[in-house]
């Protein structure tokens, strides 16, 4: 033992002795796991190769940082806002034809032409995007009080004036009628609803069950039919089907780690294979966003916008963005630049994120048109937490203030915002606390 060794051990011992756990650590860890799962559900735009990286959780390798897929920093994260951005050429995207003649764009972190300016103060307007808060659904000027103990967790509009509401993280969904009364209880881990609310699916343990707007079962796609695992991977490790969108009666679902998908027509029960693995589906224009496996040695994430009918690739966009939703009319994509696990090469020179928490991309040409939550954006530290874009060209954003409160704001594409719902505290004063507003999925 070196002469310094006894002293070193003593110093480590005395420093360790002074540390005490003063909270329910197990509860907090479980809450953080829940929070991380929300991020994963919120950020489905993951490239197939990276998903495959966690497909083989053989022992410890599954929890090594290099084995983790990038996750968007989700709704409940109190994330350190990026403090800078790289100097970059002007223009949000550059076009460079590839040998395959797919227009390829690079999201290089150049400032968007419009930076969102979040508002302050009380509500001065409304939003067309329904939301639920503290047990009440707000649908324009109409309010529907939920009965029972429902407070909200996710929300989607169903046909006939009903709603699909999830309660927190309990994995329980309720079909709620127009008066707010629960009519059907369904168990499952995630839900996907089509644009008009006539069909929805609940995913549970890799199986999909389709229901009509009243919650009556239409059909089931069992995980055992998925054939989801590549060679050499146990079927037990397969996540089964994962619904990514519904166009009319056709459910698009990825097939585990295979990098392929299925289109399941719940009206006829027929299935057909779909090349690639869409991560978001746009019913309005019949397009889908498909993750592209990175080239060997590359850490760059790319996504392609494809035509669902012809399979044609409209453009490929490469850069550190995780796409979270299409606008209702399919004219825009909403993405986040806060991504857990990015390679250093995808960060700015000062190792901050290249983009803010909300990036709006125009689907016609893949251009970044607006951004919020970057260090250079105005707003005094306010950050976008969750968002939806209706067909009216405005984005409804749950905005996190530096105090931890969340408000709802409606922002136009010229960056101007108004408050549409007041600041509310999260449910508990911990970083993983549940956000107060849940915006409708459809």
């Amino acid at each position: 033992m070196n002469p310094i060794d006894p002293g070193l051990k003593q110093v480590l011992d005395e420093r360790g002795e002074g540390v005490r756990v003063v909270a329910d650590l197990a509860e907090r860890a479980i809450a953080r796991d829940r929070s991380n799962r929300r991020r994963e559900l919120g950020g489905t735009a993951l490239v197939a190769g990276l998903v495959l990286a966690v497909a083989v959780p053989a022992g410890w390798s599954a929890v090594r940082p290099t084995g983790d897929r990038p996750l968007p920093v989700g709704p409940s994260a109190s994330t350190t806002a990026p403090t800078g951005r790289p100097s970059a050429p002007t223009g949000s995207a550059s076009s460079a034809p590839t040998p395959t003649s797919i227009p390829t764009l690079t999201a290089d972190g150049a400032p968007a032409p419009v930076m969102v300016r979040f508002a302050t103060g009380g509500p001065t307007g409304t939003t067309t995007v329904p939301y639920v808060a503290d047990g009440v659904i707000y649908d324009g000027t109409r309010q529907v009080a939920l009965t029972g103990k429902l407070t909200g967790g996710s929300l989607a509009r169903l046909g006939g004036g009903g709603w699909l509401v999830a309660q927190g993280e309990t994995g329980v969904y309720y079909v709620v009628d127009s008066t707010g009364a629960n009519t059907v209880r369904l168990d499952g881990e995630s839900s996907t609803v089509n644009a008009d609310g006539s069909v929805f699916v609940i995913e549970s343990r890799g199986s999909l069950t389709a229901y009509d707007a009243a919650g009556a079962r239409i059909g089931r796609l069992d995980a055992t039919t998925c054939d989801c695992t590549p060679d050499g991977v146990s079927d037990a490790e397969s996540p089964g089907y994962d619904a990514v969108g519904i166009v009319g009666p056709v459910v698009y679902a990825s097939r585990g780690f295979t990098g392929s998908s299925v289109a399941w027509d719940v009206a006829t029960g027929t299935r057909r294979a779909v090349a690639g693995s869409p991560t978001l589906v746009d019913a309005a224009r019949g397009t889908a966003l498909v993750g592209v496996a990175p080239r060997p040695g590359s850490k760059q994430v790319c996504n392609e916008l494809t035509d669902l009918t012809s399979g044609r690739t409209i453009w490929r966009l490469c850069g550190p963005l995780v796409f979270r939703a299409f606008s209702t009319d399919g004219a825009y994509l909403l993405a986040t630049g806060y991504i857990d696990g990015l390679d250093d090469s995808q960060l700015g020179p000062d190792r901050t994120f290249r983009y803010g928490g909300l990036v709006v991309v125009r689907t016609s040409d893949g251009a970044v048109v607006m951004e919020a939550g970057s260090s250079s954006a105005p707003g005094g530290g306010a950050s976008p937490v969750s968002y939806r874009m209706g067909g009216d060209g405005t984005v409804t954003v749950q905005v996190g203030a530096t105090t931890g409160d969340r408000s709802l704001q409606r922002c136009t594409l010229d960056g101007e915002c108004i408050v549409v719902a007041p600041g509310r505290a999260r449910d508990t004063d911990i970083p993983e606390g549940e956000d107060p507003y849940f915006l409708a999925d459809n």
Partner: protein
Amino acid sequence: MDDAERRADFTAYVRAREQSLARLAYLLSGDRDAAEDLLQNALAKVYRHWDRVRGAELPDAYVRRVMVNENNSRWRGLLRRHESPSSHVLEVLDPPGAPGLDSATSIDLWHHVQSLPRQQRAAVVLRYYEDLTEAQTAEVLGCSIGTVKSHTSRAISALRSRMSEATA
């Protein structure tokens, strides 16, 4: 094992081991805020894989490895979640002073430990605080025994050099 049982089992493990894990997190990361984030992130990952972890012969070794990997993650600082004044998970008291070491020496040595490269610091903490063997340390760090020797040797040399400079 259903969710309630899984949760209860994980909670029992954490309650039994939390002080030890908290100290390791603090020694690896060097400050309270970072340790809180490290500890919660690591345990969240452990909870995610709890069905496998609980069946492991040495769950502590698994958990240590998660913590070291999490601490070494180069992008973790970007995403740190900050506690509010009322939500802290850890309390860190000033040490009373190690017997045989004067206060200034103790503080200097602690500062120098904190300035070591992460892998070297992890090797030192695992070897000298956790009392792991070189083989066990290699397992946790995911490297060879030779690399552990190298990390430890370089760390000790650096500490000795810095302490010599301080007393010169």
